[in-house]
């Protein structure tokens, strides 16, 4: 997301201006910053040792790893398929294109618990598909592939919707120029088109990753909440609170939060660098 710049230059120092500015700033602090400080403070107040112990608990480590790995797998698939989907939507004309375009955003409208339920119904042990997969030794529900499926569903639109507008705006002349110089379609895609799309793909990837880190509703139904197997970090945090281990919940939450912020910050830095290069 590009940062929004002020449209009025400074000098608005009248009392109403100051009050308005102070109010919105205070609102941001109260709504966003304060809860973060609360978490940071409380999870560290018991000292670094307690924090480390909580984070290094084998179950916590497993949950964190599982969350990051499933999210990464999802991101890789999303980047490839999302870019391909955006490509098809922009570059081809075919019957049903409008319907397809409208369906893309559907996952955002589906409550995540419903998502989980749908996947269980489709792949669960008692379903037709689940039975067939089971006879070949694949289990989806209550195992890690199920988590990836749930994450793919909930983050489906991100890459598509960030790449599509950029692709639509793209000047075809650059690709044509490459072609006149002898570059094949594939080479042109790699060397000319993809670098132009890269920032948009990266944005989509980062947004999906961020979304996946916190995904709860769909995963809890699909994964079955088994410690050391399918318990992702949000499920772990929830479970620790339920069982009264507040320190464990807080410490792991802080790590999760740091990861999310890390993604957000790197996204911002990356975009800044890119826009410098592009001269915008």
């Amino acid at each position, binding site marked *: 997301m590009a940062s929004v710049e002020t449209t009025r230059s400074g000098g608005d120092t009248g009392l109403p201006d100051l009050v308005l500015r102070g109010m919105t700033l205070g609102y941001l602090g109260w709504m966003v910053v304060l809860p973060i400080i609360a978490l940071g403070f409380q999870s560290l107040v018991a000292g670094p040792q307690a924090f480390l112990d909580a984070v290094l608990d084998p179950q916590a480590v497993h949950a964190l790893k599982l969350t990051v790995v499933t999210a990464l797998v999802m991101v890789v698939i999303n980047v490839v398929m999302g870019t391909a989907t955006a490509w098809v939507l922009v570059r081809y004309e075919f019957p049903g294109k409008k319907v397809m375009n409208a369906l893309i955003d559907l996952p955002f409208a589906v409550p995540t618990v419903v998502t989980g339920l749908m996947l269980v119904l489709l792949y669960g042990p008692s379903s037709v598909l689940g039975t067939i997969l089971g006879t070949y030794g694949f289990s989806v529900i209550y195992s890690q592939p199920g988590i990836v499926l749930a994450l793919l569903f909930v983050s489906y639109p991100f890459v598509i919707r960030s790449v599509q507008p950029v692709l639509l705006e793209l*000047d075809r*002349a*650059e690709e*044509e*120029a*490459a*072609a*006149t*110089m*002898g*570059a*094949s379609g594939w*080479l042109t895609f790699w*060397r*000319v088109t993809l*670098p*132009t799309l890269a920032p948009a793909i990266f944005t989509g990837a980062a947004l999906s990753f961020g979304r996946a880190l916190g995904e709860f509703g769909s995963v809890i139904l699909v994964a079955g909440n088994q410690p050391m197997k399918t318990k992702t970090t949000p499920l772990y945090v929830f479970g620790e609170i339920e069982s009264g281990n507040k320190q464990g919940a807080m410490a792991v939450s802080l790590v999760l939060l740091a990861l999310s912020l890390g993604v957000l910050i790197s996204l911002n830095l990356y975009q800044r660098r890119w826009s410098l*290069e*592009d*001269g*915008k």
Partner: protein
Amino acid sequence: MSIVVENLSKRFGTFQAVSDVSFEVPTGQLVALLGPSGSGKSTILRIIAGLEDPDTGRVSLTGEDATSVPVQRRGVGFVFQHYALFRHMTVRQNVAFGLEVRKKPKAEIEEKVERLLKLVQLHGYADRYPSQLSGGQRQRVALARSLAPEPKVLLLDEPFGALDARVRDELRAWLRRLHDEVHVTSLFVTHDQQEAFEVSDQVVVLNHGKVEQYGPPQQLYERPVSPFVAQFLGQVNVLPMKALWNPQAIDLKHIQEAFGSDVLNTEEAVYVRPHDLDIHREPNTRPCWRGRIERLTPLGGIVRIDLSINSDERLQIDLPRDQQLALSLVQGDDVFVSPRSFTPIGPPKQIPGDAAGTFYTI
């Protein structure tokens, strides 16, 4: 012949963008495709490049049929109106692209990129990104990039169309000099007749997807084959025959040759260039129109005189300043103007010789 185009036609939906276009570009020449916007110039250029397929017709490049050769193997350089530089690559990387695609050795690429950047006077800019260059500089990079793989022919699609007037003038002159240096057969699209005249050896005039006329600029200007060409290439006046001043003494021989003996009753008119009109205070034996001076505009060495004939026909004359002074013309004067040469408009007439539609000398 480096570019031969035969009977090209192209239709977009129901719109005939190009119909039955044929012309040839001799090796080493710089030829302009000139026509109003929408006349099919870009489409023809893109067909020659292989970026667009013709419905019918053939394209040959340096003697070989290229109609079904894919764009990658046609060996054309193409310069786009909006530069189409690779925005994430530096100037150096842009120019090197076509050479890397051809897997040239690294040393050769480096040496050639240097040389081309010198040629387009941008050797200090190799490590900049396109966004850090002005429009004129970008177009020069685009030119260097298109020349790098040593194309058989160079195609330029309104190369100066996106630049402001001053830069455009500079680049035109510069392109002409560059062409005299490099001698690559070039075809460039423009809708600006001055640009076509300044830069090119020959001009193809297009209208509604058809070739109207093909020839050196001077010939098009002096001997246009159609009213369209006459009007498109510079200022012309339309003078109605009916309004001819007609006392007995006037010699109508030449005009009657073109229009028949009943010339004074015809609805037809002639075209006359603003600098092909003489102005005098009294009628003589030459055919003339009578007009009143509405406005005098000094333009350096010449004076542009706006006249009205019959109070509703407008007429423009470019007169050398000393003549205007000699006649001491001022606004409101009644004068007589006679054409030194003219061309008839309207349905084609049986005109003696091969002079059909050309400007007549009186």
